């Protein structure tokens, strides 16, 4: 059993979970979504085992570093963070229909890692600058933040497809109540914001200990700041200006697009210091 087997099987298990959630929704069968949840939990365990295996393997290869050091590893971890956050929400709020919006994200992140030809899954040694506990803290907190934003993005999408009319026959009529959608969107943004804040801060502390500068305005940093600003705007609009519902959902969607751009766009379109994440 090696990590690459575990992680590629994870991809397929997450795909299966997604299929169950979609099926449950399309055929209005509650049992399918129960199955979806179980499959998702199995996928999550597989995902965790894969990450741990990879950690062990890197020690066996003599490189010895935590598996958060390149694009592949960070995407695998991104899936993991979204999955754990979702499992928590489903257990707490018992609204399995939310899985329809979140499980595809869990699947897409790890599928992208596995199938994108430019993303190497090789375990490679760490450059000297990357050897720091601050870096590990930085990656973990940033991705917890991104996961919060991803889930809140899922909730924001609901605003646009849930029918206004409570008697509607549409299959989307069964989505959670407006109140709960609103609450959860906000809670997830709050969760994401706290962790993004810690993520940016640990990143700055790391940069200061590696290079003697905590902020250099490189594109990756700047885009994470832009993301942070968008969610700070979200918060002020909600608290100070009393925004809610659809108009606020636009901001949350915009914020998640900024997350995606920070993560992918900057690597492909702009150049910077960061080797990956």
């Amino acid at each position, binding site marked *: 059993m090696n990590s690459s087997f575990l992680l590629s099987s994870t991809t397929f298990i997450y795909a299966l979970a997604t299929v169950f959630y979609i099926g449950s929704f399309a055929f209005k069968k509650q049992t399918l979504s129960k199955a979806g949840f179980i499959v998702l939990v199995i996928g999550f365990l597989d995902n965790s085992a894969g990450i741990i295996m990879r950690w062990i393997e890197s020690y066996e290869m003599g490189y010895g570093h935590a598996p958060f050091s390149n694009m592949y590893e960070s995407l695998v971890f991104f899936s993991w963070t979204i999955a754990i956050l979702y499992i928590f929400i489903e257990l707490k709020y018992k609204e399995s229909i939310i899985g329809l919006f979140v499980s595809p994200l869990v699947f897409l992140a790890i599928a992208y890692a596995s199938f994108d030809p430019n993303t190497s899954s090789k375990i490679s040694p760490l450059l000297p600058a990357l050897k720091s506990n601050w870096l590990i803290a930085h990656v973990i907190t940033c991705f917890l933040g991104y996961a919060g934003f991803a889930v809140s993005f899922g909730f924001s999408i609901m605003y646009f497809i849930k029918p206004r009319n409570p008697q509607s026959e549409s299959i989307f009529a069964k989505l959670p109540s407006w109140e709960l959608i609103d609450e959860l969107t906000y809670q997830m943004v709050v969760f994401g*914001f706290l962790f993004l*804040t810690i993520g940016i801060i640990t990143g700055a502390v790391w940069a200061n200990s590696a*290079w003697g500068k*905590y902020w250099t305005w490189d594109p990756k940093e700047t885009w994470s700041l832009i993301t942070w600003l968008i969610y700070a*705007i979200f918060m*002020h609009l909600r608290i100070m200006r009393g925004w809610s519902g659809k108009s606020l959902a636009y901001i949350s969607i915009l914020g998640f697009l900024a997350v995606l751009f920070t993560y992918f766009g900057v690597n492909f379109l702009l150049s910077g210091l960061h080797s990956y994440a």
Partner: protein
Amino acid sequence: MKKNKTIPEQIWQFFCSARLAVYTLVILALTSIIGTVVLQNGAEEEYIEFYGHGWYNLIKAFDVDDMYHAWWFLGLIVILCVNIIVCSIERLSTTWKIIFPKKIIFNPDRFRKLKNLEIFPVKKTLLSLSLEVEKLLSKNVGPVLKEETGKSVILYAEKGRWTRMGVYVVHTSLILLLSGALIGSLFGFKANLNLDEGKTLDTAILVENKKPVKLGFSIRCNDFNVKFYDTGAPEEFKSNLTIIEDGKEILTEDILVNHPLTYKGINIFQSSYGSAPPDSVSLEIFGQQDKTALIRTVKIGEEFQLPDEETIFKLEGFLPHFDFNGHDLGQAFIGRIVEKDGKSFQIGLPLKFPTFDKMRKGSFAFVIKEAEQKHYTGLHITKDPGIWYVYAGFILMIIGCWVTFFMAHESYFIEIETTGELSSNLYVSGTSNRNSHGLKIKIRKMCHILKG
């Protein structure tokens, strides 16, 4: 409301709005994008080539080539700070009165009208219920206020009044962080220093303008080591440095990437390395006629007679790039051979091709046996007196966000009303300054306990 405001009042009003904060944050987010798309701190020619003269003039006019330090960008940040400070001052007296009230008072009528009010009957006496509720509230919430009228008892408890400070902590942390950055850029510096192994220097070169800066002490590089992975990527580089002040050795320490050394507020970072010219080489000298060979270590600048006792060899120096008929052969020693008739010519001895000199087919051939590979260590040297403000800002921001998001000022109201000898009605409700959903769940839980 007064109609005619004086100008200072208008300015105060302008900075006192939360709307301004939102607008400024939007503008900051949008303009920050520019610097990630347009090259920063590039050379004039690069911009002209890419954007043409017209755009270049515009770029220059708005300092877009260094936009994060441009006057208008810094201006936006100043507006944010003033906005936060003015808003905080404006609200502080109100918030202060809320956070530190002379006496906690509550309005029962308000709680009776709340949306989350729950009403249910319990088969217990007023007295026993009142004791039970008091215990529950003081255990889960805080000190209980009690108001008794003949037929009913009202109990009230609250917690987390102080958490209303959270927002101020977050905003203060921002000001602290930005002032730290300002202090750092005014009173600190960033410089580089390339130090050959064995050498001592006391001056670094500023990154900003390439001017020298005195450190106030000297640094000697005793040793430099670089380790590679088997893939060829660098694994670690390490310098052993000694700090010398007033001719005395103060301390000797290893620095690595991620493990800087700090002395008297000056931080020394391992940032890069390169090869320094070696100062001696061990050469094997072949005589072509008598097929003799002899090994000799030669220092740069040294000259000596060859075994034929007529020709003189002088090791002139070392070049990082030795040009041979238009080819760059890399690092090489340069020697000069002076023949007995006084004619002399230069030869190159590239490190990469130790036997290169044999091709010359001269009467002597010089083969490199060993050249001590020396390194220089690339040090990044900084002074940042603002860093503690920045770090304090970081910590305060995390604490402030935590308090703001996950804690709240919650008040609970429970009214017990006798309806019979052994029966009472309970009215339970509460307020929170945020997260009303969470509060509802807590109230339901409380009701659940009280229903028994």
